[in-house]
């Protein structure tokens, strides 16, 4: 059963356009939404949350579109951005009050539990919180109520490794019941290796790759060797050739492995390497 369905989403700006983005995310899974800066990641996530309006296409969360019932649609989403969206003058008590009003499923006990466990200061305005505290506060506000889809926009950026590991664990437990899903954009691709089930790679507003993570890793090889030894037949199949003093590094679709012969080293690439070589080739 699909939790998130994105169909032919498009958005036009003067100097950029997001074109025909389509994917589905089943219940209980995590999707990593990756791409270079300015590739359209935040725009896509904003179109999903409804903060921005699409020029074309549709988004369904658990079968419901924003146009059908905006209140119910937004109620299903938990959003954590790279920037703290709570007003800087607000203290935790103000945020708690607002969340209590708007979300019938908001649990004060859960929220206060997170605040206690993460040692977030009750009496400081959020503008005086550290970057990590702000992110944790956004997570507390989301995890203290019932949501179906967690949308994270570069939420783990700027967190120290310990805190990032905690967040990764939280995301894994979030989808554990098989009823909820997560879509998150990040620059830290090692996070994706750990938890993403699907990878959607976008570049310049267009889809480059969209596959289950394990299949994606299986479908490429990381190739290294001497540049001079690359035959023309192989050269046109290599993606993102990175030359240096010692030779080259590139990725190659696994089904072209027979072109390698014995002259090159190859291994399974990481998500990081696939993305970097694709960006290089663009």
């Amino acid at each position, binding site marked *: 059963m699909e939790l998130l369905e994105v169909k032919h989403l498009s958005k036009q700006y003067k100097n950029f356009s997001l074109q025909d983005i389509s994917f589905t995310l089943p219940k209980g899974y995590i999707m990593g939404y990756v791409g270079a800066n300015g590739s359209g990641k935040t725009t896509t996530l904003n179109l999903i949350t409804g903060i921005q309006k699409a020029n074309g296409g549709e988004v369904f969360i658990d079968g419901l579109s924003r146009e059908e019932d905006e209140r119910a*649609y*937004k109620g299903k989403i938990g959003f954590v951005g790279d920037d703290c*969206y*709570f*007003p800087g*003058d*607000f203290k935790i008590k103000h945020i708690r009050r*607002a969340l209590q*009003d708007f979300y019938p499923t908001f649990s004060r006990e859960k929220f206060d539990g997170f605040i206690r466990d993460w040692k977030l200061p009750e009496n400081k305005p959020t503008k005086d919180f550290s970057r990590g505290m702000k992110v944790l506060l956004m997570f507390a506000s989301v995890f203290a109520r019932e949501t179906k889809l967690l949308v994270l926009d570069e939420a783990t950026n700027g967190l120290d490794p310990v805190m990032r590991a905690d967040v990764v664990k939280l995301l894994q437990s979030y989808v554990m019941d098989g009823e909820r899903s997560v879509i998150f954009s990040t620059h830290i691709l090692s996070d994706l290796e750990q938890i993403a089930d699907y990878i959607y790679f976008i570049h310049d507003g267009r889809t480059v790759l969209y596959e289950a993570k394990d299949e994606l890793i299986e479908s490429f090889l990381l190739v290294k060797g001497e540049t001079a030894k690359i035959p023309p037949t192989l050269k046109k199949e290599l993606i993102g050739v990175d030359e240096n003093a010692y030779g080259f590094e590139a990725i190659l679709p696994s089904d072209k492995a027979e072109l390698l012969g014995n002259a090159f080293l190859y291994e399974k690439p990481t998500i990081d390497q696939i993305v970097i070589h694709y960006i290089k080739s663009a």
Partner: protein
Amino acid sequence: MRALYYTKIDYMLTRKQLRIVPIFFLLALLMGKSASVGEMTLLVACSYVIFIASIFSSAPFSYSGGRNRGFLLMFPATVKDRVTGRFLFGLSFVGLLGLCSAAIFGICGMIGVEIPLWTIGAGLCELAIGIVLVVLQYLFFYLFGEGKDNWQYLNNLVRTVPGMTMFFATSYLAGDVQDEVAAGTLPDLETVAGMMMRAGVLSMAAALLLTVIAAAVCAKVISRRDYA
């Protein structure tokens, strides 16, 4: 109901600014107390209160742009809820300061200042004008200026100039009318007290109708926009 939650958030957002409103109220009360030198001063005190209302009622716009916007936009509510909530904030704030004006009348009456009946009708008219000023400001912010940080200078002008103009115009007119009544070129205003009261009630009704229409227009227009 969700509109009221947004109103509540607006009060929380502006709580620091609102804390200084009582100071202005005291100033207006002092102005009203000096009505012993002329009953028109009561109306000037009211227009001062309205001036304050017009400045502070647009304060939430300063807090709902930029990075704070996501907070308001992510709630499970419609654009209509959000805009209605903001208009209710403006209306309730002007209403609260209207009550402050009534309190000024009451306190001044208790300490012996004579409160002519016609000033109550005129006070209602002032309150209605105050609502219209706030509605026009909201229209401007929603249709042109919301979230445009580089419009800060213009936004500040829109926040202050209308109320200030009303305050100075009332002060000027009040002096003029008082002089003419004293000179006998205008009839005693107490003779038109009934008419003034009717005008006050009608202008309040018109101001409230305008508020409803303006809120609907703003919600309709901004619902098509990004970050709205």
